[in-house]
Structures are given as structure tokens and as C-alpha cells.
């Protein structure tokens, strides 16, 4: 192959990496285990007309994923039910190449608060379908599609969640770069779990319009069917609007009130401590987004700031 990478990667490995970075934990003892959590906060997954039993649907979908991963990992995989999540548990008997390769992908980190996007996915030589599989894996574990995630104009969106820890604030920006720069999938906005933006320290949410996310899709049948339903509604509801990528800078929408939690060094990335932000993109910039609009017209494109908390669940 023409590309040279640090270690083995293919579409299945990329998919597994997505699952791990989203909700994975690597335990070294007493037994080497990889645990990926598939949480469900409500009993039913609902679209507009569609509705599915979450637990049942996740368990069904996990069987297909288990089949795919069994071929890759050649080891014991269990599906363990809990009250509000299902664990996908992979056990490794030895410190084999697969286990070492996973640790190489996570750069030695062992739990999702500490994971970043593996550098291999930014390699320009890497086929884009591997990157797409990484995002699909991420979305299968940490993506939500439901009718309540509406933009103010009535369009439905998919949300990729990043749980809020002081150690992983850069992850949403990295995922955004992968989507926009590598896959040309436009991001609508990132709803940061930051006190200035009205969401305290709740999870960060990467919002993508449903019709755009169809290009990635879900491996879970219930999520995929809801996605297709909501994408079709978007096409009817706002037929002439083509989602545009986040330009990197937006027009200011007034000042946000000061908040004592702006200095909470226990919850914030060091680059954000003591700083005040009036727009989501200002946080992105501080965390490494280097995107700039090609012209000022991009900045003033119609955009409604939802970060006061309005319009969110």
C-alpha cells in the first residue's frame, strides 16, 4: 500500500477506535478488558412517527457489532445489561498485538475522559472511508438522533456527545476537524458544556443536520431509521437550505453574563480558565480550531445563537 502508518489500520479497526474513543475503558487488571458503554437515558427512542424500545434495539444491534468485532478481535465478547446502559465487554487473555495496537491508538490512555482522536485519522494518506468508519463508531456509541433536537428553523439534527471532563475539551474540536476538513461533512455548531453558554458543565454536543449525517449513518437499525425519517422531514420542511460548514467565526450575538464558574480549574481546560466567552466558536478557537472564514460574508450568514439554553432539551 502507498501509505505508511504507525500500525495496522483498516475500516474495522477504525470503527472499533470510534467506539473506544466515544465510551471505551481499557482495564489492565485483574484481566485485560475493553468495555464500551452504550447508554440509554430513556426507555424509548423516538422519531416523529417512529418509536423503538431502546434497550431491546441496542441489544439487537450489538449482536451485529459483536459479529463484526469477533472477526477482528478473535476473543470473548460479552453483552452485559445494566439499568441505563449496556456494556460491550471484550476480554483479552494475553498482552497480544491487538491489545497493543489498541493502546497505540489511544496513545496509552485508558478511559474516555482522557482519549483524543488518534493521530492516524489526520494522516492525509489515510483513505477517507476509514475516517468515516471512525465517526460511525463514535456515533453508534455516543450519538443521538431524536425529534427534540431541533434548530430554530425546524430542522432536525444529530448530536455527537462528548462527556464533560477537564481533560477532554479538545476532543469536540478534533472531531469537528475530522468531519469538516477530512470528510467534508458540515457541522452546524458545538454546544459547549460551559457556564457562559447556559449549559453549566453538561456534556458537549456536536450538532449536525440529519440529512448531512445520512452520509455517515448508524449501524443500529433503530437509529438509522429515525435518522432517515428526520432527514426526510428536513427536506420537506426547509427544502431550499443546504447546510453549510461552520465558518470558524460567527457574528456576535451580544454579551453573555459573567459567571463565577469561568475560573473553575477543576472542570475547565487550562486554556479556558479565567476566560469569558460570548460565542461557541470563541471556545473552539481557544482549543485549537484554526478555521477562518474565506470572506466576511460567511461570518454574517444567518445564524441563530441557541447557547442561552433556548431551543435545547
Amino acid at each position, binding site marked *: 500500500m*502507498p501509505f505508511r502508518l504507525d500500525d495496522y489500520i*483498516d*475500516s474495522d479497526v477504525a470503527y472499533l477506535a470510534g467506539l473506544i474513543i466515544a465510551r471505551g475503558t481499557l482495564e489492565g487488571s485483574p484481566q485485560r478488558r475493553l468495555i464500551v458503554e452504550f447508554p440509554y437515558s430513556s426507555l424509548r427512542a423516538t422519531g416523529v412517527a417512529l418509536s423503538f424500545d431502546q434497550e431491546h434495539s441496542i441489544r439487537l444491534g450489538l449482536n451485529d*457489532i459483536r459479529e463484526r468485532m469477533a472477526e477482528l478481535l478473535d476473543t470473548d465478547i460479552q453483552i452485559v445489561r445494566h439499568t441505563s446502559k449496556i456494556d460491550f465487554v471484550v476480554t483479552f487473555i494475553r498482552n497480544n498485538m491487538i491489545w497493543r495496537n489498541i493502546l497505540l491508538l489511544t496513545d496509552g490512555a485508558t478511559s474516555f475522559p482522557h482519549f483524543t482522536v488518534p493521530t492516524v485519522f489526520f494522516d492525509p*494518506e489515510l483513505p*477517507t472511508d476509514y475516517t468515516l468508519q471512525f465517526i460511525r463508531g463514535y456515533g453508534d456509541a455516543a450519538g443521538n438522533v431524536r425529534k427534540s433536537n431541533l434548530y430554530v428553523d425546524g430542522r432536525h439534527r444529530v448530536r455527537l456527545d462528548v462527556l464533560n471532563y477537564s481533560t477532554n475539551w479538545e476532543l469536540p474540536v478534533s472531531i469537528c476537524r475530522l468531519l469538516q476538513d477530512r470528510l467534508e461533512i458540515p457541522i452546524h455548531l458545538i454546544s459547549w458544556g460551559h457556564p457562559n453558554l447556559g449549559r453549566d458543565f453538561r456534556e458537549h454536543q456536536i450538532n449536525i443536520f440529519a440529512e448531512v449525517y*445520512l452520509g*455517515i449513518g448508524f449501524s443500529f437499525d433503530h437509529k438509522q431509521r429515525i435518522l432517515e425519517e428526520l432527514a426526510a422531514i428536513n427536506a420537506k420542511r426547509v427544502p431550499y437550505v443546504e447546510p453549510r460548514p461552520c465558518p470558524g467565526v460567527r457574528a456576535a450575538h451580544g454579551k453573555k453574563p459573567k459567571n463565577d464558574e469561568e475560573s473553575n480549574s477543576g472542570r475547565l481546560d487550562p486554556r479556558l480558565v479565567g476566560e469569558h466567552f460570548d460565542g461557541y466558536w470563541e471556545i473552539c478557537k481557544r482549543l485549537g480550531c484554526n478555521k477562518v472564514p474565506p470572506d466576511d460574508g460567511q461570518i454574517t450568514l444567518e445564524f441563530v445563537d441557541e447557547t442561552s439554553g433556548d431551543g435545547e432539551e
Partner: protein
Amino acid sequence: MKYSSEREMYPGVCVWLETFLRERHRRSEVKVCDGSRKSLARLITDNGIHKRMPPEWVSWDIQVDVVGFVFQKKYTVTAFVECKNSALTLRDLSQLLGYSRIALPRYSFLISPQGPSDSLRSLLMSFNRRDVLRFDEPAGHLPRSIVVAKWHPPGESIDWGTVIADDSFRIGRL
């Protein structure tokens, strides 16, 4: 999203195959054609790409839906995609196996939005007969196998989670 005919799939499959080949052969020129209306030999003649083809190319009186060519220094690599707008059957597989045995492409895909039929899936997975997908066994190398997969219309790509082939390692590095 559904296709009203198989032909509707071709433009999207052409774009996907071109990207697939370009990203795996970055230093070579790539050309992808809709081959559904003429024989492979005619396609090669009409496009003037017979150099670095094996001498028997003139005999390739077969029609493959989408064909890709990667022009390398010493030889031309070919890729086949056979598209169906219904569940894939043993008959579909047999057709592409025949074509692949003749022209020995580097890649050979059998795709449909519905994926394999129950009987084909059963043969390949339940009875573990993925050996029937092999079409070439080059000396000193792993065999080359047909890739059976679901086509993902919204993403205009094969659904990598559904891939079935004889040798996973080879698929992995596809």
C-alpha cells in the same frame, strides 16, 4: 432512499470506486467507467487503455457494471463492481466469479442496497463457505476474493460493517 432501477446506482458507484482507488493508489492515474453497455474489451479499446494490459484482454467479452483502471508503471490494475437492485443471489455471485476468473481484477465487489439474500448469506456465513468467493490464488500471496457487501445509498458507499469476503486480512487492507 430507494433506486427504481439498477442503472440509477451507477453514477454513485462510479464516484465511490474512483475515490476508493485514488486513495489507495495515490501516485497512479485512475479511470472509472460505466461498463454496463459494452464489453470490457470494447471499453478498453474505446478508451485507448490497452497498454500494460495482459495480452488476452481482446477476448474479454464480458460486461461489468462499473470498471476501474489504475495505470501503474508496469501494469494496469483493474477493479470490478457488479451492482444489483435486489438481494444478492448465488446466481449474481456466480456471474461475477466467472468474470473475475477471466480478467483477474485486483478488486471485485458484488453490492446491493439489500445485501446478500438469505441463501447466499447462509452459504457464506452459516456453512462457512467463504472459499467460494476466491477467484485468484497468486503464488506466495493470500488469495483474492470477491467482496460481498451492502451498498449504503445515503452515503453512496459500501457499508463496511456488512463486508463478507474470504480473507479478512486482505479486506482489512483494501
